[in-house]
């Protein structure tokens, strides 16, 4: 036995914590804070192996020396080579599932509010849709299509804590007060986001993984002196365009033709109300982080502040966040650590009277002046100011002095872990995760009199929701290489339990004595809500590879939930996947342009437990049904079930098959990945539309039918340099074919926002597609009208829309409604360009969505020519005489619309494909050498940049923004079966930013 000492360093200096191993033994050592090591080499030991994460592995023959110094070389691809998978990491080379990743570089400095926005256009298979441009509004993420009409969110796992995403933190019930549950996370703290797309990868998350899994890893400390980084930017957010509306004379003329005499207002100044509500919002974001540590302990601490004004009045978003991560080694075998996020999000949304103020104000009578003799200096609404026209003063309705709605979320998201190395290769780990959200939602209306003369009375609605998710896990992990490194096995086995609890108090007071407290009202009411569930899972994984050439992974998870009746609570979710690195075979020609080809194939199952209502299997009685009885006319409780109890409720199961190829060419300058996926969701959890004769009009939660999603994903990246000019470009494309293949006994599901019938789900077509009448131009003359097929919903005249008798039965009726398009895209794609030259850097990110339609319901009022409000200038092209136009979008003006031209038809459904410059930035980094000498080594790095998000959008869509989720309703949540309706939501802002990054030593 001999002792060898030495030093390990890299180009920057000593490397603490590097591992030194005697090859073929379990004898090892780590370098100390100065990079020094000492190792006892047993008899027969001849080679030392040096490893350090992010550096190339080195094997050095001892050759009788007693001192060996090593300089480690950074592995350029090392970071991208490790991929976070469920409950561990895997070398990307060994991966057999389909996983997409982005790193911190793709996230920091972008003007985004929440981490999900970073996924826009960056990873194949992942599509995001913003519900509104209101900062902090929910965002839908769909991975490989839409597999269920219920909860479609992927499972987010943040530093090992699976997040329960809810829209519980609201005030009031309008969907516009729903908030993005991820907005409390500061994107700047994120090291990487890995998206598990296929079931072979997700099955280990079992019950909650049917929609894919997104794993977020936050930054952790690096050994060495404290390094301080500041990132910040200031920016301006504005909107793309407004809608052209009629001027005063045009409006008076049109309303005159509709039988309303507004001539008294002729000559009044024109007011474009949109210009009063939309505004340029100021956005600023500042982050400071500190990282450092020694060989025993490392830490990362950061603080962030973000303030984003909305592009409409009464919208705002402020986040304060604090993050602390640390890892502490105790002795040789024990390690502890934690990651803690504490944040507060203060969000202001438009109050009920001001919802969608920007769009809705477009329909104001254009002569209605904003300011006048009314309360707070606004103009009254009466015969003198508006007459028979109509107007709402959205300046007043978005004025904080009149009404204000705020939603505050205080979040603690933390994970504590302990890890014990039992023997070489065998590790035990336990962890406790906490996700604690306290909401403070207030809807306030002051006692100021209303502009129409009605008296005001003050009102405060205070909601105090609390959510607590506790996740405890224990895993045992074993990794072993034997047979001279030919056989590599890994195994993990564990248990995880998640307990969720939600409580809400609500207090409402009117005629307040103290406007800060609802309980000081003369009329006060309170309400409570609560919910809880538990999920318990056993999980296991086995990986094996032979010489890195033949790869295999098997996962299994058994989950049990409290959400279903005993007997339906357990399910096992298995998966297997195989890989073959064909280029490692002896027969594969070497030294060609092809560096690597890996074939992958996987199959697996995962589940979904979320129905619309917890305990939907139990016959539960609501006690908020009431009646009035007795001479005193007192209110009495009248308990009754309001939902149908379905005792047979069980898991929804998604089965996915995936084959893929990973390849690299031309000295790895070009890398490419191709996948084909086929995902089948069985026992789909959906709201079964009961016949009303059942006594229930809410749908019953049930497992019905089957939905299929299939398609391909393609992505590539090419990186090269010409002298000092480094550049890369890449792209990705995903296709999704969505088809409902079975609906059990349900002939179809007709759905829509607020009880409308605008969407349908039926076997053989995509989920929740638009469903209505088809149009075929306009009747041009009396002869065409006379020849018209009778229409049960209207009587045509020349200039009216010809609705198509789709089923050719000689009458146009409800049976002629048909498929009008789908709100879910048939394909989506992203492109990225990066270039760097002598300190200058440029990057651009494009994103597109195609084969997708949107129901532009905002247009119904603007172009319907029935309301008393203002119209879009589009109606100036309407039919006026034979041959003037044949466009179904431009029927004649007709009092009371006797032909039903405004019914839901393809007139209102538009193609909403788009290509968008998602991000673009140009930066300059100062020379590090000069910087260090100028600042006496205090500042090590400095970069300035200008950037833009959403700079330009190429689309034929006529509304504010083609990327819209859902219209406003009083239903919470995603509402998948009635999505894709543009009711005039705020458009996504165009943000122009000026930013600065500095690193201090």
């Amino acid at each position, binding site marked *: 036995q001999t002792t060898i000492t030495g030093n390990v360093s890299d180009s920057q200096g000593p490397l603490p914590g590097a591992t030194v191993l005697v090859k073929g033994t379990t004898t090892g050592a780590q370098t100390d804070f100065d990079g020094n090591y000492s190792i006892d080499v047993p008899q027969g030991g001849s080679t030392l192996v040096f490893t350090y994460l992010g550096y190339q592995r080195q094997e050095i023959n001892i050759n009788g020396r007693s001192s060996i110094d090593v300089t480690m070389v950074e592995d350029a691809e090392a970071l991208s080579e490790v991929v976070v998978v469920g409950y561990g990491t895997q070398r990307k080379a060994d991966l057999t599932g389909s996983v997409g990743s982005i790193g911190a570089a793709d996230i920091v400095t972008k003007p985004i509010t929440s981490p999900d926005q970073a996924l826009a256009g960056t990873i194949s298979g992942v599509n995001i849709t913003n519900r509104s441009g209101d900062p902090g509004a929910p965002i839908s993420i769909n991975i490989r299509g839409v597999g269920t009409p219920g909860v479609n969110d992927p499972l987010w796992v943040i530093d090992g804590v699976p997040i329960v995403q809810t829209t519980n933190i609201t005030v009031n019930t309008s969907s516009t007060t729903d908030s993005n549950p991820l907005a409390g996370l500061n994107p700047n703290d994120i090291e990487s986001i890995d998206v598990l797309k296929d079931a072979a990868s997700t099955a280990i998350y079992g019950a909650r993984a049917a929609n894919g899994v997104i794993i977020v890893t936050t930054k952790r400390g690096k050994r060495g002196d404290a390094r301080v980084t500041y990132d910040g930017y200031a920016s301006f957010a504005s909107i793309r365009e407004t809608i052209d509306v009629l001027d005063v004379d045009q409006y008076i003329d049109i309303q005159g033709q509709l039988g309303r005499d507004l001539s008294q207002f002729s000559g009044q100044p024109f007011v474009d109300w949109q210009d009063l509500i939309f505004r340029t919002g100021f956005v600023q974001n500042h982050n400071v982080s500190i990282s450092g540590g020694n060989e025993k302990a490392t830490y990362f601490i950061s603080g962030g502040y973000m303030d984003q004004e909305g592009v409409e009045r009464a919208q705002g978003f402020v986040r304060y966040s604090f993050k602390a991560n640390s890892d502490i080694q105790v002795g040789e075998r024990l390690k502890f650590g934690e990651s803690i996020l504490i944040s507060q999000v203060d969000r202001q949304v438009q109050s009920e009277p001001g919802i969608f103020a920007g769009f809705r104000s477009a329909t104001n009578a254009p002569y209605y002046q904003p300011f006048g003799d009314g309360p707070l200096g606004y103009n009254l609404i009466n015969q003198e100011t508006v007459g028979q026209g109509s107007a709402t003063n959205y300046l007043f309705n978005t004025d904080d002095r009149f009404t204000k709605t705020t939603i505050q979320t205080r979040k603690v998201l933390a994970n504590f872990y302990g890890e014990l190395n039992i023997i070489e290769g065998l590790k035990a780990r336990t962890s406790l995760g906490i996700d604690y959200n306290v909401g403070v939602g207030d809807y306030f209306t002051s006692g100021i009199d209303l502009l129409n003369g*009605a008296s005001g009375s003050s009102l405060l609605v205070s909601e105090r929701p609390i959510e607590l998710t506790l996740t405890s896990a224990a895993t045992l992990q074993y990794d072993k290489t034997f047979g001279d490194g030919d056989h590599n096995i890994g195994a993990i086995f564990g248990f995880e339990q998640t307990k969720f609890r939600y409580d809400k108090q609500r207090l409402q*007071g009117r005629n307040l004595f103290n406007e800060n407290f609802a309980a000081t009202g003369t*009329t006060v009411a309170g309400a409570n809500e609560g919910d809880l569930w538990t999920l318990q899972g056993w999980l296991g994984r086995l990986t094996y590879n032979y010489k890195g050439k033949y790869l295999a992974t098997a996962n299994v998870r058994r989950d049990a939930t409290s959400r279903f009746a005993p007997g339906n609570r357990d399910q096992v979710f298995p998966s297997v996947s195989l890989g073959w690195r064909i280029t490692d075979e002896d027969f594969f020609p070497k030294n060609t342009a092809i560096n690597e080809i890996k074939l992958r194939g996987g199959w697996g199952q995962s589940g979904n437990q979320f129905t619309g209502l917890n305990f939907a299997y139990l016959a539960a*009685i609501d006690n908020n049904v009431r009646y009035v009885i007795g001479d005193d006319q007192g209110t009495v409780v009248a*308990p009754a079930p309001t939902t149908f109890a379905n005792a047979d409720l069980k898991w929804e199961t998604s089965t996915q098959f995936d084959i893929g190829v990973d390849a690299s060419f031309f000295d790895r300058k070009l890398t490419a990945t191709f996948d084909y996926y086929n995902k089948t969701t069985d026992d789909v959890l959906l709201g079964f539309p009961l016949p009303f004769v059942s006594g229930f009009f809410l749908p019953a939660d049930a497992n019905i039918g089957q939905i299929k999603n299939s398609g391909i994903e393609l992505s590539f990246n090419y990186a090269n340099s010409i002298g000092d000019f480094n550049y890369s470009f890449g792209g990705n494309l995903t296709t999704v074919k969505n088809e409902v293949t079975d609906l059990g006994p349900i002939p179809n599901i007709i759905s829509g926002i607020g009880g409308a019938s605008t969407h349908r789900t039926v076997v053989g077509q995509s989920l929740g597609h638009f469903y209505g009448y088809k149009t075929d131009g306009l009747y041009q003359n009396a002869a065409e009208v006379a020849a018209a097929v009778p229409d049960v919903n209207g009587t045509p005249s020349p200039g009216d829309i010809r609705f198509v008798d789709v089923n050719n039965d000689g009458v146009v009726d409800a049976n002629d409604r048909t498929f009008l398009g789908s709100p879910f895209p048939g394909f989506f794609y992203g492109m990225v360009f990066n270039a760097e030259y002598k300190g200058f850097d440029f990057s651009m990110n494009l994103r597109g969505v195609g084969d997708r339609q949107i129901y532009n319901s905002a247009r119904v009022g603007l172009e319907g020519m029935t309301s008393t409000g203002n119209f879009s200038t589009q109606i100036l092209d309407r039919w006026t005489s034979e041959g003037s136009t044949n466009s179904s979008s431009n029927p004649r003006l007709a009092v009371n619309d006797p032909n039903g031209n405004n019914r839901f038809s393809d007139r209102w459904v538009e193609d909403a494909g788009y290509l968008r410059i998602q991000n673009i930035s140009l930066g300059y980094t100062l020379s590090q050498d000069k910087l260090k000498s100028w600042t006496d080594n205090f500042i090590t790095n400095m970069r300035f940049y200008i950037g833009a998000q959403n700079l330009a959008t190429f689309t034929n869509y006529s509304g504010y923004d083609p990327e819209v989720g859902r219209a406003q309703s009083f239903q919470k949540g995603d509402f998948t079966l009635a999505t894709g309706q543009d009711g005039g939501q705020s458009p996504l802002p165009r943000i122009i930013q000026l930013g600065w990054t500095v690193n201090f030593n």
Partner: protein
Amino acid sequence: DQLDLQPLDRLTTDTFYKSRADFDGAIFASYSSIQDFWGTSTETLSERGEFWKISVAITDDISANEATADQITRDVDQLLIRASDRPYAAVYTQIYEGIYRANLVLERLDAENDLTDEDKTVLAAEARFLRAWFHFQAMKLFGTPPLAMEIIPGINDQALPNASRDELFTAILADFAAAEAGLPDVWDSGNTGRATSWAATSYIGKVNVWKEDWPAAITALGNVVNNGPYMLMPNYEDNFNFDTENNAESIFEIQFGGPFSDDNIWVFDDTHSEDFKASQGIARSYYWDAGGNGVPGGKNGWFAPTQDLLNSYEPGDLRLPFVLYQDGDMYYSYDGGGQIELPYDPTWSSTGLTSSKYQGAHNTVPGNRSPNGQSEFNNERWFRFAELKLLYAEALIRGGGDVGVAFDQIDDIRDRAGLGPVDRTSDPLTAMIQEKRVELAMEPHRWFDITRWGIGSDIFGADWNDRLNVFPFPLTEIERSNGLLQQNPGY
């Protein structure tokens, strides 16, 4: 067991339905479905006072205010009736919700509970009264609606076929007969508003008028007129004042009260999770009071009385001020700040008229309004003794009874209105029809008489189509019944 959890904010059927109080609550739930006929909900169906549209706005008494009324109101006013429209789904669903809740009481009466036999008799009678009442409404609206006589457990077995008129009459009359036998003549003051034995008898009479079983109708209605506890109130307006609810003229009345809590009228149905939304007011003035720019009170003014209705009143009719406002009247409304009083301006309404029924100076006061002024607590007088007297008259006239007695019924009503007796040589049926129109103006009866009498084309002329004698079943209901429920002809 960590996985064996119970809901935090709800009870389950296993633990409920034990005591008399439990069952009283369960039966009140069935009554509460009637409140929702006029409900304003933003969830699922987005109903906005739908029953007014298809029972009142649709008649010749009311015109939709073109400037302010919603599209459905305007369509209904034009007799544009579509199976896909909201009112039919809204009212249909409330009817069968009420029936389900009555059936649930009947089912649970047979399960293990703490009730006495006497309790069971009364509760069963009351549940059957409500079940019959709802089925009768369904029959008047839809002609041949399904009979839902028990709770069906299977999720795929919920759809039901049309019932024939005979089946409906048999079931409804059997239920009302059981109610008549089991219900008390009168409830104590703590239970005012619950159905009584006399109400059941009255309905037996009314249903038999619909069945045109004149002897049975005359027997039942005559029994109520001669032996019952009811009388015409001295003043017509007592029937519409919030402080003379459940009076001696009222046979069946939908109770509204409060404030349980303060809030707006939105989401006025039982399914919403927000407790505070379960305000128990009715949004009558919100839809009926004059509305539009410049009218105080922030109301909608959807429904406007017609000139034709005004013309149908004889000079000197004392009822008119309690039916509508016209030029020269003082107008009363209410907003969050209190009563509004100012001269009526005919330009507020497309017909120059606005309803004053259930309104007026007496009712536009804080005691009858929610703090925000949007909803009011006045009961809906669904079945008044005045209507019963006219039904009695009709049965006598058409069933070959004593026409003199029939004239007496009409004269009693005219007398209260300050009008002289009907000329005994005039056609009694015409006199009854005329009196019924003016006495029950804007109460939900005329449309169902028009369709029952088959006089639609006389009133609406070329706009009439005989399919209108019944409404369409909701399109969704047809679609969800998988062919079991047949749509009414012409829809």
